[in-house]
């Protein structure tokens, strides 16, 4: 780093970005209902309060259903799209791939509103399934991006070699392609799960009467006495998210190394 000014700027920037997250565990272990300095002592009671909250468990269960289904659906769709875009040329390819990736930059607000209008117009009841629908839309671009990089690092002649040795296209996919892109699939599942778990707007708009974890947490802020327990929950979520993202990156890199490429890009 040549200029000390730039170094300082970088530091300040990172601090601004991540310091607030550090407040979560600090207040989660602080022995006071009031979220303010100075700290008043160490306690784990907020964690037990969180643990005993049955509505938290209900929201968590809902979120697991939504995020799990979303991860699987988005990854399967991503698999098809990534495969098509890396192996085949077809008319309108650039446009189609662009539209698939669009939700990445589309404001979630717009996705949520338009889906809500469409669902109501279609006469469908809001449920966990409608949230899954919205989340698949948001998560598929992540899956496509990760899986495209997995497919791109896959030498095409590996497939041809398997065909050449007598395997059918289907058994070639199972014996050669799938094992080699498996790390990418795991990475995609983990990322989609995390993105879905953290998502708020679509979850808030489309969930109906079933609260999801993100919506539940937002709701708790209306009751100041519940806030420290939410801090405890947030601390757990941060830890789990970091773990999942690290695992996803590990699998993504391992996949690229396995197929002989060099790791680059990615989200983390």
């Amino acid at each position: 780093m040549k200029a000390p000014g730039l170094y300082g700027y970088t530091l300040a920037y990172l601090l601004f970005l991540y310091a607030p997250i550090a407040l979560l565990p600090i207040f989660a272990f602080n022995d006071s209902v009031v979220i303010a300095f100075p700290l008043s002592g160490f306690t784990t009671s907020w964690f037990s309060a969180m643990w005993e909250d049955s509505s938290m468990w209900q929201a968590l269960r809902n979120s697991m259903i939504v995020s799990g289904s979303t991860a699987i659906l988005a990854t399967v769709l991503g698999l098809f799209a990534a495969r098509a875009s890396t192996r085949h040329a077809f008319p309108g390819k650039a446009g189609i791939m662009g539209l698939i990736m669009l939700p990445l930059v589309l404001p979630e607000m717009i996705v949520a509103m338009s889906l809500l209008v469409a669902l109501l117009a279609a006469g469908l009841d809001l449920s966990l399934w409608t949230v899954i629908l919205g989340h698949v839309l948001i998560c598929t671009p992540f899956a496509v991006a990760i899986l495209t990089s997995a497919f791109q690092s896959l030498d095409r002649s590996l497939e041809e070699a398997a065909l050449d040795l007598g395997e059918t296209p289907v058994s070639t996919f199972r014996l050669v392609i799938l094992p080699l892109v498996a790390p990418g699939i795991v990475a995609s599942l983990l990322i989609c799960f995390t993105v879905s778990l953290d998502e708020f707007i679509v979850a808030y708009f489309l969930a109906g009467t079933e609260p999801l974890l993100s919506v539940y947490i937002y709701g708790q802020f209306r009751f100041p006495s519940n806030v420290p327990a939410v801090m405890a929950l947030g601390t757990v979520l941060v830890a789990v998210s970091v773990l999942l993202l690290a695992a996803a990156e590990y699998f993504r890199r391992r996949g690229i190394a396995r197929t002989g490429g060099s790791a680059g890009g990615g989200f983390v």
Partner: protein
Amino acid sequence: MTDTPMIDLSDVQKYYGDYHALRGITATIRPGEFFSLLGPSGCGKTTLLRTIAGFEEISSGMIRIDGRDMAGVPANRRPTNMVFQSYAIFPHLSVAENVGFGLRRLGLDAAEKTRRIGTALEMVGLAGYGARAAHALSGGQRQRVALARALILKPKVLLLDEPLSALDKKMREQMQVELIKLQRQVGITFILVTHDQEEALVMSDRIAVMFEGEIAQLADPETLYRRPTSRRVAEFIGVMNFLPATIVSEGSGRAALEVQGLGRCEVDAPPGGVASDGGTTVGMRPETLTILYDGQAPTDRSADGTVDEVVYYGDMTYYDVRLDGTDRPVRISMRNVFGRPVLNIKARVRVGWSPGALVLFR
């Protein structure tokens, strides 16, 4: 040859969109032959190999393998196996699993599988390497694994796409010899794609020289080297000297010529005759010319000239000699003999030559 051809290509055409990659390839490849496709990069060698393997559909024409029309037969049901340019070793499998990959569908018991894999590894000199991870192999070893994997199914035809181009020179020369031996041992028809003329000459029974999607000449290495039918083939394979000539008379397969620097002589005319207004070109290889030392009588004819350039190689010396009455030098390769000093630039020399070694181009 009364055998049915192993591969019969008849007017094979291939278009990639508008691009005409194969322009009417017609050739037959004999059973047990070591056949090479030789040509500069981009001439369509790989494309032709891939159409035989079944990875590319042909636009028109016919490919028969062992008498059977291959139209509509996918790659996994053709009696061919391929060694890919990148070797395409499955990175998630061990060496033994790679080599035995093609056996999966044969329904063999484990003992028979192990035995066949062992035999295949032994054949390529990798006995005992079965348990190794594929990604831990050197370039030469990967190539051997690719060979063993392709040969284990005993295909009728083995297709090799520039299999030696990724190896260093020494390894390449060693593998050339090993491949020839292997081919004799297994007796399978080999089709080798290469852009290296030396490699093709060393290894092949016959060579098809390709330019821009067409076969320019198909012949055994010696004929190709000694009797190229076009200047382009002559230039692509080895070094060829060219001298302008005029045709004095032509008839019954012979032509009388007046060659610049060499004088009047009679040579074999190319089939179909020389369709020209009298002006033409003759070619001669550097080793068909000799520099005569003082007092040495020529075995056939001789011409005078001046040494223009001397390139010393230890065992050989290349001389560029400008024959009297010509404006461009010819290259002459001479074996260095004990007791005969290397000549200097500007030395006057007598060059021995023979009309029988001249090639007349259409």
